[in-house]
């Protein structure tokens, strides 16, 4: 069980803003956090791991207090059974793929997991290569693997699958789910791909204006060929309507008949089949 109630003033593009996070996660659940860039998703991840200090509040994981501003408790990252997969991977360039994973293994850890995980991310042939020899997608797979090697109580994945192609992505989504279930991990998945979050997570939250609110899944969101995003613009082009949604850091347009889009408003999150998009987003 994870209980989070933290506050921090963060520097944003347009001045300081307040991050107020209240979140309760049952043991063994996966929750997804979605939000535009600059909303503080990564800062939240860092605060949970102990590499960024909140201004005040509490973090309690499995009855262990990790942070409590009133009692002046702030466990070091080493003392928290948490692991974060960094958005920039933070792989160690001086080590091979395999050494990166072995470095993550705890003293009494079972080295069999290294073999397993290398075969799952399909890097057997590259396991002795240095990190800079790998492509972005391959590096991302190593980073994901490294974060999962020591089975932390709280696993935080920051954009874990953004650089990975479709086929591998489905495989790794499956792997995250399986590992998560097998080891009863509690996982926080951060992504700008809301349909991916709906697919994997038990519940999905949007981080907006410094606070979290739950986003309900749409019925067709588990369809792989759809994308979800927030409507930012609606342009009338009679008899059609062009709707612009924000998907990650890009804007996507799709056109539909005016009467069909009558109840779509700006700010709303919609899920649309990929083949309805005007522009190919891949």
């Amino acid at each position, binding site marked *: 069980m994870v209980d989070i109630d933290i506050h921090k003033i963060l520097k944003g593009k347009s001045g300081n803003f307040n991050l107020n996070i209240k979140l309760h996660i049952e043991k063994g659940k996966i929750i997804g956090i979605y939000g535009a860039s600059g909303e503080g998703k990564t800062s939240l991840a*860092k605060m949970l*791991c102990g*590499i960024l200090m909140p201004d005040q509040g509490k973090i309690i994981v499995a009855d262990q207090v990790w942070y409590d501003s009133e009692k002046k408790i702030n466990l*070091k*990252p*080493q003392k928290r059974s*948490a*692991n*974060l997969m*960094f958005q*920039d991977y*933070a*792989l*160690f*360039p*001086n080590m091979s793929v395999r050494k990166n994973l072995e*470095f*993550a293994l*705890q003293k009494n850890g079972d080295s069999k997991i290294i073999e397993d995980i290398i075969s799952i991310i399909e890097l057997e042939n590259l396991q002795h290569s*240095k990190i*800079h020899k790998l492509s972005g997608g391959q590096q991302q797979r190593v980073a994901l693997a*490294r974060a999962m090697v*020591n089975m932390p109580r709280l696993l935080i994945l920051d954009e874990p699958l953004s650089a990975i192609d479709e086929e591998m992505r489905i495989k790794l989504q499956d792997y995250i789910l399986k590992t998560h279930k097998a080891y009863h991990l509690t996982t926080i998945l951060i992504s700008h791909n809301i349909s991916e979050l709906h697919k994997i997570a038990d519940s999905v939250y949007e981080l907006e204006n410094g606070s979290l609110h739950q986003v309900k899944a749409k019925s067709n969101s588990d369809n792989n060929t759809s994308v979800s995003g927030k409507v930012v613009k609606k342009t009338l082009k009679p008899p059609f309507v062009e709707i612009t949604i924000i998907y990650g850091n890009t804007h996507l347009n799709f056109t539909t008949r005016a009467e069909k889009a009558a109840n779509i408003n700006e700010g709303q999150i919609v899920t649309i089949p990929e083949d309805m998009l005007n522009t190919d987003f891949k």
Partner: protein
Amino acid sequence: MDWGPLLLTLKLALLTTFLLFFVSVPIAYSLAYSRGKLKPVFEALISLPLVLPPTVLGFYLLISFSPSSVIGEFLNDWIGLQLVFSFEGLVFASILYSLPFMVQPLQAGLSSLPQNLKHASNLLGKSDFVTLFKVLLPNIKPSILTGIVLSFTHTIGEFGVVLMIGGNIPDKTRVASVAIFEEVESLNYETAHYYSAILLLVTFIILVFTFTLNRRLQKNNSLW
């Protein structure tokens, strides 16, 4: 020709560089990761030897460590260490004098590493000490090489500090640079030529070797 001064210079440079590395790593590490208000003061203190005339440093060391001073008396009485006109004194003075040449490359190297490397290692349960030696230092090899070579060659080139605190005692403090000065003073140009040419050649070769290696380190990471 007496090889003593050259061997003494080599011994001094090797020992100074070796000790300096271990003195500088914690200093560079704390400077690279500190955000304290006093950081510029410490940085200035370490950089002083870059701008001060060596004779100033030598002068202060001489009066601090002379047997009649409080520190000199203490060192002499308690650990039997005499830092004035002795080889130990030369090593100590050289470490102080070459400090910026080792600390600055190490500090710059550490600061240029992504912060997340340290965070990632900490999150994998590794202490700061293990992180430093297993993750951070192995990833700044060009900086380490630069620091080692600069300190080594700088110590070879030392003159003012050595003369002030060491004097000119054969096989104890008479290093090559001092020997050259003395040979010239006594119009022994031939010996001075030998010493000078050897120093010139050795330091030049070291620098060429370093720049070549550094270029390869930067171009081809597989050497790591």
